[in-house]
Each structure stands twice: as structure tokens, then as C-alpha cells.
């Protein structure tokens, strides 16, 4: 599935480089907004349908919320620290970091609200985060507390990296990872625009 998405973006880059004329940019922006509205509507339905998540939070206690909260704060603080090294404005780095691995949505929001250049950074950064999470998961599971495997996965803990977390840890951790992923995914559409308004 990820391959299809990468092919779509690669095909787009080729078309943009060699085929599409400059004046198409306006239509492209309108198309992205239209597509994003549809996608967010269905993402919303998916989030709303996860009612069992609320029940599990009740059973396990509200300290569960501390997991996604720590991941969100850590991702943003980590990105801000790096921003001084790579000479990227602080809030721009915060917006990219708050994508937490959900590259499709966060990158498009950044592209629409800020610039195509930062959108490209957001896309690459969050794709890399997902890939690194997949690579790091088995290592963290082997040498450290299983809870820590949820951290690098970020928002992807509810879909792409969930099977890997389940395989290398336990079903208990997988439940926590899923809940954390759902909470983070709900936060991202609000967090990314929040940081971009300061830029």
C-alpha cells in the first residue's frame, strides 16, 4: 500500500517536472483542498467509530493518555532542538515534527498552509520516521522496556507499525500502541496548523 502512495507522488513529480505548465498550479491547489476535505471527512468517521478505545481507556485508567501525550511532546521538543542545528525556523520544525509519522496528512496540510518546500520536508521527514520506526522496533523490543517501542511509531502505531509492535512485544503493548496511535492521529490535524500559524 505504501508503495502505491510513493509511486503516486513520484509520478506527480515527473509530471510536474516535464508535463504540467505553470498556470496549472492554481487548479492543483484547489484539487488538493477538495481531496483533503474528502479524506479528512472519512478519517473523522474512522476516528469517531473507535468507541472501544474510550472503554479501554476507562478500564486501564487515564494514565494511558500519558503515552500519546509524552510522544507528542517529545516529537515536538525533539524537532525544535534539531531546528537549531539544521537552521530551520523553530515553528516550522515543530510543525514537521508534530506529523508524528503520518506523512500523507501532515505533509499535505503543511503544503497547503505554508509552502511546498516545507511540505516536501514534512513528507520526507515523516516517511523516514516511519521507516526508522520499523527498523528500530525489534531492536528496542529486545534491549529495552516494551513500552518504549510505541514511541518511535507515533501515529503509525494504529495501522502500519501495529502488526510489527504486536509481533515483537505482547498483545497488552499492542493495545496500548493502538490507543496511543488513535489519540495521536486525532491530534495531528489540529497540532500541525497550530504550529504553522506562528510561522
Amino acid at each position, binding site marked *: 500500500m505504501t508503495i502505491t*502512495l510513493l509511486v*503516486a*507522488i513520484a*509520478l*506527480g*513529480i*515527473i*509530471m*510536474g*517536472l516535464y508535463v504540467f505548465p505553470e498556470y496549472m498550479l492554481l487548479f*492543483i491547489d484547489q*484539487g*488538493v483542498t477538495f481531496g*483533503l476535505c*474528502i479524506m*479528512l*471527512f*472519512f*478519517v*473523522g*468517521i474512522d*476516528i*469517531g467509530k473507535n468507541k472501544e478505545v474510550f472503554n479501554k481507556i476507562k*478500564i*486501564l485508567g487515564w*494514565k*494511558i493518555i500519558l*503515552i500519546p501525550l*509524552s*510522544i507528542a*511532546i*517529545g516529537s*515536538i521538543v*525533539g*524537532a525544535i532542538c*534539531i*531546528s537549531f*542545528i539544521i537552521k*530551520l525556523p523553530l515553528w516550522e520544525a515543530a510543525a514537521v*515534527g508534530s506529523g*508524528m509519522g503520518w506523512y500523507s496528512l501532515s*505533509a499535505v*496540510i503543511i*503544503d497547503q*498552509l505554508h509552502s*511546498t518546500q516545507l*511540505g*516536501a*520536508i*514534512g513528507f520526507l*521527514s515523516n516517511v523516514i*520516521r516511519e521507516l526508522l*520506526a520499523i527498523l528500530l522496533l525489534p531492536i528496542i523490543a529486545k534491549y529495552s522496556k516494551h513500552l*518504549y517501542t510505541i*514511541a*518511535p511509531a*507515533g501515529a503509525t502505531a494504529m495501522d502500519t507499525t501495529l502488526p510489527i509492535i504486536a509481533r515483537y512485544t505482547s498483545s497488552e503493548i499492542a493495545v*496500548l500502541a493502538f490507543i496511543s496511535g488513535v489519540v495521536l492521529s486525532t491530534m495531528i*490535524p489540529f497540532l500541525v*496548523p497550530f504550529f504553522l500559524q506562528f510561522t
Partner: protein
Amino acid sequence: MSIMLVFLILGIIIGFFDILPKKYLDKFKAIPYISLIFILFLMGSKIGMDKKIIQNINIIGFKAFMIAIGSIIGSLGFIKLFLGRVSFSMERQEENR
């Protein structure tokens, strides 16, 4: 952006209260995926049309990589800081109740 958030919140409300019957939702299953492919294609073409990005792809790639590393280390650090001593064993939760 506000219009997009309106759609998101509308979706959450519809999903939470089961306003749309499941048989309709199953029919529309492919729509969000198709729109995602469509959006990414358009985003790709914007990147392709932007000469500055193509010329600076090395720098952009490096910055992206560094932010990814930073946010992974940050989230690991904060999980350790806030939850290093907290137990999430479900059995213990059962006993407590």
C-alpha cells in the same frame, strides 16, 4: 484550513453516533484511499514544478532526516521521563478495581 477541520469534525460526529449505516460506509471504502492517491499525485507535481525544491533536494532530505531522528529521540526520552516507572500491566489494573 478551517473548512478542512469542519469536514474532520463532521466525520468524527458521524462516526461516533453511527449516523451513516455500515452498508453505506462499506460502499464508500475506496473513496478516502483514492483521494489520498490523488492528493499525493498533486503534491508530487507541485514539488516537480518547484525548481527550488528539485535543486535543493539534498539539503531538504538532510533536514527531513534530522527532524525524524530528533522527534524519535524526543519521544523516547519523554516516554522514559513520564512513564519510566509506571506499570501498564492489565492484571494489576484488575486487582486494583
